[in-house]
């Protein structure tokens, strides 16, 4: 059972992020290789989500650069990020609650729609054919995530674990090369976590998607990640395979605390 991990696809160099006097991130560097599962972990307030937001273009880092597929940026633009093939899910679910599962995932296809708004609205010209093609992609995602039973259900009526799955589905609809997952397992019970792990691994496996995830649950992270970055107080304190990180003194003290 070997997995092909490719070259560096995303390289984060010396990123710092300040909010006024607060230093959220200080001089962070790490890279992500193609087809790997890369985790960013750390205690509360360590700067994990901020890191993701920098990659995603939501925040503009004060210093440093991000290189994606050979192109270097000193800040990312969120629309451009999506077009380049980086998708993300959200910690606090940003779904359209009143819309069906199907429509929510369909919104993920938006970037790939060629026909203009008017054509789409009136379903004229190539718009209808296009919609059928997109629907097919969406159906494959629904099948993949095993949410066929909820295709027409408004998202707001679904339990939290399933909403998380829809969120993942929408990100997948973008057919991303890199998928950023912000705490995909937060607030889930053990069974839902196991399901989610399986989906993440299957996405990585079936589509070859590179995955960057933030996670609290150490057990989960160690099981599914190829490499782990550990942040604490906005600084990188560890980087390596799960085993290396697990035995890293600094990481242990950050998580368990030390007597000073």
């Amino acid at each position, binding site marked *: *059972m*070997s*997995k092909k991990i490719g070259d560096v696809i995303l390289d984060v160099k010396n990123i710092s992020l300040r909010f006024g006097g607060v230093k959220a991130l200080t001089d962070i560097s790490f890279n992500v290789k193609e087809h790997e599962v890369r985790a960013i972990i750390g205690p509360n307030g360590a700067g994990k989500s901020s890191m993701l937001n920098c990659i995603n273009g939501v925040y503009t880092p004060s210093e440093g650069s991000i290189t994606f597929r050979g192109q270097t940026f000193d800040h990312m633009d969120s629309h451009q990020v999506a077009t380049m093939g980086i998708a993300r899910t959200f910690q606090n679910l940003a779904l359209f609650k009143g819309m069906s599962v199907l429509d929510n995932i369909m919104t993920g296809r938006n970037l790939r729609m060629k026909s203009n708004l008017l054509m789409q609205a009136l379903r004229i010209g190539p718009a209808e054919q296009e919609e059928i093609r997109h*629907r*097919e992609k969406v*159906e*494959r995602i*629904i*099948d*993949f995530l*095993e949410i*066929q*039973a909820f*295709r027409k259900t408004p998202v707001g009526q679904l339990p939290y674990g399933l909403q998380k799955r829809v969120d993942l589905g929408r990100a997948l609809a973008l057919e991303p090369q890199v998928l950023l997952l912000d705490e995909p397992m937060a607030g889930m019970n053990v069974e839902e976590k196991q399901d989610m792990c*399986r989906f993440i691994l*299957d996405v990585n*496996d*079936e589509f070859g998607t590179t995955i960057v995830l933030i996670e609290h649950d150490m057990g989960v992270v160690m099981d599914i990640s190829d490499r782990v970055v550990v942040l604490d107080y906005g600084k990188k304190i560890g980087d390596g395979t799960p085993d290396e990180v697990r035995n890293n003194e600094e990481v242990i003290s950050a998580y368990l605390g030390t007597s000073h």
Partner: protein
Amino acid sequence: MVFCRYTKQGLGMQTTFPRLLLKHASERPTAPAMREKEYGIWQTIHWADMAQMVEHMACGLHQAGLTRGEHLVVVGSNRPRLYATMLAAQSLGAIPIPLYQDAAAPECVFPLNNAEVRFCVVEDQEQVDKLLEIREQCPQIAHIFYDDPRGLRKYDEPGLASVEELLAAGAVFAKQHPDFYLAEVEKAHTDDVGAMFFTSGTTGNPKGVVHTHNSLINRAEAGALFDKLTSHEDVLAYLPPAWIGQNIFSYAQWLYCGYVVNCPESAATVTIDLKEVGPTYYFAPPRVFEGLLTSVMIRMEDAGAIKRGMFHYFMDVARKYGPTKMDGKSIGLVGGLLYTLGNFFVYGPLRNNLGMSRVRVAYTAGEAIGPDLFSFYRSIGVNLKQLYGSTETAVFVCLQPDHEARADTVGVPCAGVEIKVADNGEILVKSPGLLKGYYKNDKATEEVLTADGWYHTSDAGFLDAHGHLKIIDRVKDVGRLKGGANDGAMFAPKYVENKLKFFPHIKEVVAYGDQREKVCVMINIDVEAVGNWAERRNLPYAGYTDLAQKSEVYGLIQECVEKVNADLAADALLAGSQVSRFLVLHKELDADDGELTRTNKVRRGFIAEKYDALVTALYNGATEQFIETQVKFEDGRTGSVSATLKLSDAKTFAPVGKAA
């Protein structure tokens, strides 16, 4: 007592399953054979496609080394390719064994080794993992083919390949040897072994029930003739194919009638798919019908006042006239008018919502069905009926004719079946659909199959005045009263328990009476139903134990018991089984405490020992009894519950026959 209502005319077709397939493929190649919902759309497989898929599969399996007479295991839910696999195996003279897809890995070891299985065709990763887990214990497994490749990309186990690859290899072989497949099919005889089904015994290892092509096809035919099934039926295949019922409905009868079998998208979408397909021929165990009814009732309670009022009014109309109408009798002008209105406003939309608009024949079997539940469906115009049969009889033994469906009988013997009641009350069956034997288990075969061809069902029952079979209990549980007014009367504990359990307020019942002078029962109330009842009466209670001992609750339960007694009194054989005394238990019977089996059946003997003081009190006439019981909590801790229980007498009735 020998009873046979139908002649054998029309029966005795000498064929095999692959020949039936080829017949449909040549006669009506473009008619739909199966539909499978995939990516949100129903995809149709026509008979010609099916035949070709089976041919390729058979060629592929032949190339992989499957030989005549060898067993092949199929594990998974209802998928066209898995059905094709069974046909492909049978085409080569091999014997398919469908196994339950939700069985745990260790449970598969015995069947695999018992039948020396080398070939497994499974649905997906879950099943592959299961087989790989037990591969060490079943070293003979040489080939595992999977239908759905998801998650299996990285697997690198010897002998593991996809059905896709198997079909591709088979297609090449079929091109090179165009006559091979037909020649193989020609070699088979109708009396060859066609399939094997494992039944879980309550004790010991499961037993492989061996059926020939003939025994299965013959029963498929008997059932089809009985209900006049045609090639226009639509069936939804959603129960495990390893269960012989599903296998008859979506395989044997599918091939016999040539109708369409629809495979749902996933287990979770069954109710949605049911609505979309609108089957004409439908089967479900009682619990499914109950679940559907509950969901309707809950949604009705949330509906607006007008809708709710209309629903309740017309449901009363349905209760009054529906069953009579379903029996094919006149309901008069007023009744007819009201029912037609009700049908327009309520029953029609309701049937549509349940996915039963087109149902021509619906069956339920497996366990006793409550009379209210049964007549609910019949009263809204669903032709729900019961049947009797088992794995060993290839299902069809008794069926209810269209206008003679009753909740407490299981119908009349169907074509080819002879029924005899042994002296101990056991039902004996002679039918062309009987098993050939248990696989490699002559001892067990001899126990159930006598030399002159009678199969011992181990069910106790009798044929009533109208020729309908009535099942009362398992033979080993049927006892006799001893002493007292009804000395020597038959006592069927499960029959009494079920009758009581049909009341929504009663959850569990344990009945005693064997070798005793009268019948006494211990009852568990349904805390939700009774709690609701109590709330509506402003009756405060602290919890289960408190609620159970309220005198109002005793009154409620007493009514139920007496209704059952009145009912039993009308039954010549079981009038003696009327309940004289009862008590309501202070705790719910629980599988964690060993009082129920994992499938929620009461363990009568164990409970009698554990609650010995209560049983004694029931029989010595005490009106109160103190009891303390150990309970196990879900986290493994133990505690104890104690209470002083009331014991109550119930009115019994003189048997109707005698009194008249």
